[in-house]
């Protein structure tokens, strides 16, 4: 398993992807678009040090917006 200690960006991304996939299991209500957006955000920010209040708010808004917007559209198979 790739780890955040590994230097290459790819390994960090793979690590985040694996965590996201595991967390997605059993969460039927969350759409794939929302999961993809969450993964994108986590790749960018999760391992970059402690997030500030402003950053957290911005990320939360992005995730909420995607989650709600995707809920209005039919799930892509």
């Amino acid at each position, binding site marked *: 398993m790739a780890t955040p200690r590994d230097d290459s960006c790819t390994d960090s991304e793979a690590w985040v992807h694996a965590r996201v996939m*595991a967390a997605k299991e059993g969460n039927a209500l969350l759409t794939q678009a929302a999961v993809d957006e*969450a993964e994108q955000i986590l790749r960018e920010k999760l391992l970059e040090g402690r997030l500030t209040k402003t950053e957290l*708010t911005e*990320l*939360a808004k992005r*995730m909420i917006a995607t*989650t709600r917007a995707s*809920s209005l559209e039919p799930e892509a198979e």
Partner: protein
Amino acid sequence: MRVNSVELAWFRGAAAPIELKLASKSMVVYGANGSGKSSFVDGVEYLISDGKIGHLAHEYSGRRQEKAVPNTHTPEHERTTVSLALLDDSTVLAVIAQDGTRLIEGEGQSEVGAWDYRRTVLRQGEVSDFIMGTKGEKYSALLPLLGLDTLEIAAENLRQLAKTIEEVSRLQSMRDVLQATKAKRVATFGDDSDADILHVIRELHAEHCSGAAGNDALTCCNELKEAIDERIASSSAEERRHVALQDATKSDLKKRVEEVRKATQKLNASLEPLIAERIEVLEAALAFARRLDVQTVTVCPACGRSIPVEHFRQHIEEERGRLAAVVEAFRTRKVAVAALCDAVSSLKIATDKPELDSWRKELEAAAVGDLSYLGALQVEALRASCEEDDLRALDEKICPVWDAAASAAAKGPSSAQQLTKERSKADVGAEVVASIDRLEAVRRTESLVAFVKSLEESVRDELRQRALSIIGEISQDVQDMWAVLHPDEPIDDVRLYIPEDADKAIDIGLRFHGVSQDSPRLTLSEGHRNSLGLCIFLAMAKREDAHDGPIFLDDVVISVDRGHRGMIVSLLNEQFADRQVVVFTHDRDWYSELRHQLDESAWRFQVLLPYEKPTIGIRWSHSVSTFDDARSHLDSRPDSAANDARKIMDVELALVAEHVRLKMPFLRAEKNDKRLSHDFLERLVAAGRRCLEERREGGYIVNEDAIHLLEAADTLLVSWGNRGSHTFDVEPAEALQLIDACEQALECFRCPDCGRRIWFADASSQGLLMCECGRLRWRYGKG
């Protein structure tokens, strides 16, 4: 990467530039207390930690530690600097202004900046601090060293993110709105399903609206509301007045006032005793936390009862439950105040309508309530702060108005009552339709929060698994080191462990005389605890082997006894032979031992002169022996200087005797370790006449010069050394002569050509010891 030198100028105790010349070797630095050893360690920490020194982080040192970092007597034209040169000749230089601002630069900055302070420097206080710290403090201290701080930060980011999503989405507020809509829905439609409600709305739409209802339910509701409003507008004055009165009383104001009052009472009832109890808890928790590691039963700070420690967590959970109930009480009151304000607002708007002009006049004439108070009432101010005085005013001045409106509304014509009911259905229907989307949004948001929380849990699981694995590896190293320091002692199985029942915690376990212990604080002496702290630090530092960074040990053996200090030498030789280690000590005997036992080709030895004053600063002694300690009080206390010289000789000569395999008569028990200089010198002189030789003109002859020096030192020690410790009447000149003689006597064993001691090479088969070049030798086999 190894360090070539550390140089200080007007930094901490340093004045004129002073250099710790390591030349990429390991080093032992001896200096009496206050001689400036720690200034070098401070300098290294300053560069590693970007201009901060941990032990100076207190209220007296200033924001930039400007009151502690520069020498207190730095002349205006001098600069405070710290510089460090690495093996590859790259350097890091910190220039510090008097106000503490700093500029750190140099091509070595990236290398030095990457060193982890806690794996590079160990100070005396930090050894015991770590052992005495709580499980949580150990966790915080070790996490970065285990390389897991990134994971901990990721987990914390996720925890905060879940919380922020709840806040930003106003999840709780949306849940409150849904709950209010549900209450209205039950009141208006009973248990009807969504489909039933839409059916009712469509039927009403067909009755009141001209066009056909579209597919969109919300549009249908809005069209219906418009149509009913138009019907009301075109109805008779009496009907309009009735509808207005119905609007004014659609929310039960008196009930809303009572709900707020009830919620306030409930909140007060739960809050007051809770706050009083919290204060006691804070006081008790402090004492409790100190005892938690060493007791199995304690007094619970939450309830005051004696409880097993494992039950404490349960008590904490109960306390959390109680606090959550108080938070819920706050929320309930907020909702009740909002409902009250909505009711007041409806009444206020409705009573302002022209349809109710005549009704208002009747009310004023009958002096019912206070309509002017209602007109002036600021609803938003009431929403922000609704106290008992406000509720009483509503009771006295507004509720009678509401009663009168409700009474008049009940007597209206049936057609108006029907219109009001139908409009209410259209209003609530619209809210129900809107709540379908809102409910979906809440569910999606809750799902998102659950997803992020699950991510956090998964990261924490991984954190735990990795910590377990790394801690297992480190524990093995700790055990190996402990075994070197404490061979054949009944304290074993020393290990780091993660307590099963605690989050964010690491502790140290061991087996004491066969009994498992969860903490070294239960049974280990201070010396053993510090020795254990040293093992843990060294085990962590060992993980950095690949980076080959230096290790600085600042007076870490202060409470370790002589026997175990000797074992530390073995540990450094066995486990850290390939690392650069810099040992600072104020222990003269240990320094002498290190100087004799460590390999001179890999280790350097230097001695600091006793500190005099800030303008003179830190100074090196020209000698690697410690006789300058004695010289430093020649003028003020010559007897003490003589006594110091004797004590130095007691230790040094014991080590020399061991090296040259000098045969000494056996004494009982500890007396073997407490022989005096004279005993050694007497034997050394006697044996030296047979064994101590110097190469001259192709052959070896007895080194008579050395024998004379040894005899001279012995003579002076017998006469003045004893007087220095017993009759205290030694003159400064006598003491100086004694010190010089002692120093020269010890130098007999060092070759003036190659600089090596006479025991540098050991030809066991021939019973010979010799210096590197062979000029001096000791034929122990002959003796």
